[in-house]
């Protein structure tokens, strides 16, 4: 692992709480690591797990999802759905052979600029420890490799097929 490794992290922040917490961190000039690049969504419930996988596949070393605290969702209860998806997503990441710590769900209310900045710093430090993910580089387009993957998928499909 190179010492100069700077993790690239994509952050999905909900419009109502955590994006505003990030704004507040700015307004209050609370310095924090520049590694998290923020994408605004209306609700953490909008974060399709495939967005997270897409970000990792495109070269992110980690993904942060941030929403309103449980019970405080602007849309009543949608962050509970985020919690459920997050659990499944972690499971999927493990199944794919990834460190599931590369994805983190956090809560930050619009008043918690300081807390959000600290959470970002912690997450960046943790991903830094995990090292680069390098998914795109590892994603070989070598025909032999692809063929092997397809064979595996076919065998899997065959095994799953229910006889009529």
């Amino acid at each position, binding site marked *: 692992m190179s010492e100069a*490794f700077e993790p*690239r992290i994509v952050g999905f922040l909900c419009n109502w709480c955590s994006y505003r917490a990030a*704004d507040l961190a700015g307004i209050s000039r609370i310095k924090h690591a520049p590694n998290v690049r923020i994408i605004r969504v*209306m609700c953490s419930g909008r974060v399709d*797990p495939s967005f997270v996988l897409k970000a990792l596949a*495109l*070269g992110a070393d980690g993904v942060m999802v941030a929403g309103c605290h449980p019970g405080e969702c602007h*849309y009543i209860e949608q962050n509970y759905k985020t919690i459920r998806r997050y659990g499944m997503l972690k499971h999927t990441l493990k199944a794919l052979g990834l460190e599931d710590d590369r994805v983190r769900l956090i809560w930050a209310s619009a008043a918690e600029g300081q807390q959000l900045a600290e959470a970002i710093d912690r997450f960046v430090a943790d991903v830094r420890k995990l090292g680069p993910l390098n998914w795109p580089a590892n994603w070989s387009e070598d025909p032999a490799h692809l063929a092997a993957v397809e064979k595996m998928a076919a065998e899997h499909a065959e095994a799953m097929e229910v006889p009529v």
Partner: protein
Amino acid sequence: MAERVGVYVCHCGSNIAGMVDCEAVARWAKENVSDVVVSRDYKFMCSSLGQAMIEEDIRKEGLTRVVVAACSPHLHEKTFRRACSNAGLNPYLMQMCNIREHVSWVAQDRDAATDKARSLVSASVARVRRQKPLEPMKVTVNPRTLVVGGGIAGLQATLELADAGYPVVLVERSPSIGGHMAQFDKTFPTLDCSACILTPKMSEAYQHENVTLYSYAELEEVSGSVGSFKVRIRKRARSVKEDLCTGCGACIEKCPRKVVDNDFEVGLGYRKAIYMPFPQAVPKIPVIDRENCTWFQRGKCRVCEKMCQPGAIDYDQQDEIIELDVGNIILATGWKLFDCSRLPQYGYGRLANVFTNMEFERLCNAAGPTGGRIVLRDGKTEPASVAIVHCVGSRDKNHNEHCSAVCCMAALKFGHLVLEKTGAEVYSFYIDMRTNQKMYEEFYCRLLEEGMHFIRGRVAEITDAARLPGEEGKLIIQCEDTLLGRQRRIPVDMVVLMGALEPQADAKELGLRCGISCSMAGWYTERHPKLDPVATMTDGVFVAGACQGAKDIPAAVAQGAAAAARVMGMITKGTVEIEPVTASIDEEGCSGCRICNNMCPYNAIEYDAGRNVSRVITALCKGCGTCVAACPAGVITGAHFNNEQIGAEIEGILWDAGAAAARAGAASGHAAAV
């Protein structure tokens, strides 16, 4: 067709340019990001010149998309949308890129900040290319307004609106309107009588043809959005029929059950089990306190029923649920007093003659438990010396960091009242005197002349353990006099603790019901602390008075009136534009699996069994996008946040790390890119 994108990087004076190389970002965007045909940096993009620059480029360069890299969209999205609109571009084809709050203000390294700005610009361009023109939805504004809280701020807002001819529903939790101001005797700095200026407003609000007052009622539920909220109010059972009661008070007089009044008289006086909080209560209708009523507790008595000639007593009365449509909501729910017993070193609750500021207000009040005589807890002895301790629970990191804003002036008022009524020596223990409003400093000077003693220093301890001669039977204030630079012990007969103003215990709960948030301290968060202290992040919900932050009566009144003015503006305009960010289902691709149905907390998705498809009811959809993320077929589109747009944003934000970098043969991927 390729889009023609214009990128505008704002310096924000030195706010952004001090940490981000704006010129380099603009140049880079033009050279490296596809479809960018114009890219400029400018000192202040939000100025009229900056906006004119964008408008001119839209017209002359034929821009089809605009990216403004500046501050948070929550600050200036509207400004730039308007600029685009002026030049004939659909406002939803503009994307803001937050390089101030999220980059320059939080970064420490100029190169890293500039890099981050590049990737955010790249993401915004990628996204804006896929944005679609949208039309905001127009909603008619219901002219009826709900005001929550009948203290001075809420009353002011209510009367402003009602006098302008608009219907108002005022909801107050306690049996009477009036709030804390009704408990005061005098108001600083003019020393005019609180009741004299408040009670006319109370009765005016009650009698006003445009005001519907629900006292002893609470706001239970809010749904809908700006212009057309639906609210549910629970009107608690008074056990007295309001339409029959004449307010004669015979029931109260004859009620045999006496109860310590912990609300209005803050524990210093008594009331009956059937009571009005105070004689000037509005409405003048008593309430039965069921927890203390002999009939409700033991099944005997019914004296009040016998005494009531109009037959207004109704023991079987149930809570009433009232559902209403309102266009706007003003929250004016006020404050609560800090529990002074949380500071055991000050002895409140243990040492009899330590009082809180609210207790002292009642002692001074001519209608209070002592008839306005300032006496010790025994009810008869006048104190020969009184200490007033400032900042109890405020300006204290262990409790409340904020300054309660009213205590210095209230302490001066107390000092004046003690000097006027008793001739006792008065000592004020302050950290800083804060008298920065109109006529406040003059009042301070007056008290200096009147002979109130001022000792600068936070009180360490209040004790009854005498150590020196002359301290026996007294309360001793132990404090460092920071002006003299030495410790002092001052024996007094009576201590008044200036307890902090705190947010209401259930402020957060109510805020959530209305979709607004609280600061860390628990005050309601305004839209902008300086430029928009009345509106909140949720359109159609306004705040007034001490629920937004500790403030005195003049400030609460001003804010109440300001909130009313804002609501009037909305009503006069008649319609309000709502963001067209809603979901829609492509019925062609819908398999009728109904997974999305359960995702929606607003029941905005209905299932058409006949055609086996689900459909979004746009009027109910709030646009969170949870159903969009849940649809296994991917046929739900979240307008302005669709999969393609967010996908592009992810690709753009990782422009320097993408699959492209890997394909370029960078074996050590990251090392090469970093």
